[in-house]
């Protein structure tokens, strides 16, 4: 298999606004035809990074390369990169068609070609019947599609999307996530999407970069980020996790109340330092076999029904917070549990992640 080609290189890029360091020393390679997600809590510098890629903010430091060419100082209208704004920024005095044609008119293409390309993208985004409307006459979902069509019709090398689904309601969001993925496949354009919604990034992206306070914490495929978070913050931010505090030992963590958790301790954690063990709720079994490495007894406090799954809150001596356990509804049908029941929980040493606290 040949190595995927790098389209965009972010090379040690930083950006400060006065004393605020919005982006600090980020390096990333984005591959051709990739669906790449920038994920992080609000204010972590996602928009700033995207605006630097689009050419609206000059980096304070570092370089941006597209196809190996340095575009760090190239103005936005000279970059084969388009940005879909968080506010959509549709031109209010122009019809949908005029909005979508605008970018091609700027390329001075023949009118006939503009028409056919605009017609094609309006068809793809199911906007044909709205072509003559003004943006104010459209719903949120329709505006979002106009913004997308307006950027896509330019056939950029790279499409940047700033929280494109943020303004939509939950149900529409789910549909649009899949729709965006389908579109990306169809047009064969590299997408970089910004989101603060970890679930969204897991669903859509080929790779995810997790940012915090302007720094890059981890960049990996969704599964790798979920299964092997690089630190406590990422483990907490992505999905749901049980944390158990204690001190490192040679082969696990000794919790403050003297229970041993078996797991692989990273080399950098010498025995005795404060550590935290993390276990995903779906890795925990009820009534484990006796040879299971980690076992603990507890009392079921509550059950939350979540479609296929049930989430149990189990009070254990391991921590003051209830343990979250995710079991399938089928499993509970076979072996009923209800609030107040005594249960035993168990999980394998391989499912424990250990981090510095």
């Amino acid at each position, binding site marked *: 298999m040949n190595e995927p080609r790098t389209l965009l290189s972010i090379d040690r890029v930083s950006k400060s606004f006065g004393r605020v360091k919005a982006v600090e020393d980020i390096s990333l390679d984005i591959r051709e035809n990739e669906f790449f997600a920038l994920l992080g809590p609000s204010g972590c510098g996602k928009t700033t990074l995207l605006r630097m890629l689009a050419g*609206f903010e000059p980096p304070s430091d570092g370089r941006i390369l597209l196809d190996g060419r340095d575009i760090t100082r190239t103005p936005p*209208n000279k970059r084969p990169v388009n940005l879909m704004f968080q506010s959509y920024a*549709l*031109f209010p005095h122009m019809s949908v068609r005029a909005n979508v044609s*605008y970018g091609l008119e*700027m390329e001075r293409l023949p009118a006939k070609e503009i028409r056919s390309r605009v017609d094609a993208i309006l068809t793809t985004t199911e906007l044909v019947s709205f072509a003559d409307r003004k943006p104010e006459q459209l719903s949120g979902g329709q505006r979002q599609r106009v913004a997308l069509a307006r950027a896509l019709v330019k056939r950029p090398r790279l499409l940047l999307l700033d929280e494109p689904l943020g303004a939509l309601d939950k149900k529409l969001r789910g549909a649009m996530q899949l729709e965006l993925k389908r579109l990306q496949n169809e047009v064969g354009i590299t997408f970089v999407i910004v989101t603060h919604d970890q679930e969204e990034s897991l669903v859509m992206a080929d790779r995810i970069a997790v940012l915090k306070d302007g720094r890059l914490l981890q960049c990996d495929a969704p599964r790798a980020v979920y299964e092997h978070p690089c630190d406590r913050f990422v483990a907490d931010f992505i999905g749901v996790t049980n944390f158990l505090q204690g001190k490192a030992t040679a082969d696990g963590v000794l919790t403050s109340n003297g229970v041993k958790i078996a797991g692989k301790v990273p080399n950098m954690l010498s025995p005795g330092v404060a550590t935290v063990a993390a276990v995903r709720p779906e890795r925990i079994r009820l009534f484990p076999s006796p040879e299971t490495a980690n076992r603990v007894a507890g009392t079921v406090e509550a059950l939350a029904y979540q479609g296929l799954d049930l989430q149990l809150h189990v009070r254990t001596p391991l921590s003051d917070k209830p343990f979250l356990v995710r079991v399938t509804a089928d499993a509970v049908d076979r072996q009923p549990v209800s609030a107040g029941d005594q249960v035993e929980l168990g999980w394998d040493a391989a499912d424990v992640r250990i981090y510095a606290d």
Partner: protein
Amino acid sequence: MAPALAWLTALMVVPCALVLTLAFFRRGIYGGIEYTVTLENFGLVFDPLYARIFLKSAYIAGTATGIAVIIGYAAAYAIAAAPRRLQPVFLFFAVLPFWSNYLIRTYAWIVLLNREGLITQLLRWVGYTGEPPSMLYTEGAVIAGLVYNYLPFVILACYAPLSRLNPELGEASRDLGASSVTTFRRIILPLTVPGIAAGAVFVFVLSIGNFVTPALLGGGRFQMIGNLVYDQFLTVNDWPFGAALAIALIAVMLLVLMAQSQFADRAAGRTIEARGGADG
């Protein structure tokens, strides 16, 4: 509602009705009014002598409006582009002249422009030795005075839509490949033109009827419609003709205002939308 209506009747409708009726009478031989109904005052308004003064007034007001719009829009653009917290300060300075009396402001231009005035002294100071330039009592002086007096209206009228404009609209245009000039022409200007129209109408209407500025800065020979009306009432004592001129002037102003309101109605939709974008 009722008190407002009463005030409007007392201050606007009644005087206008008086002026309108006056215009249909004849001037008495020794001044005064002869109460016979006639249309000849209106005929006289279209006499080439007076029609020319109308055209000249429109030309002066139009030129002043054009200059005020260009300067005012540029100033408003600069203020709207300044950091948010400085904008009220700049606006305050822009409207500061309003706090002084109109006459005093206009006299300041005499001090500036007269043959031995500040500008001449400045020229002398940098080494100019020739004839002092004659700037006062010219058409240019009148236009300068009008522009100066009404500029704050234009700045305020243009600042409103400019400050509400979502800056991402300009960025989106650049992102789609437009130069900054094209972005201004196709996005920013069309979305802020209602402000320009409002400011322009203000300057034009106030300028075309103005009589103080032409009298002070244009000199004795310089006449605009306002001076003509003034003279009919206070010098020549031909009140009916003065009234007819005044009615004609009001008609011109109303036409301009109606054209502007038509235009504003059509533009209203997009202004509202541009604001919505800024909030989102």
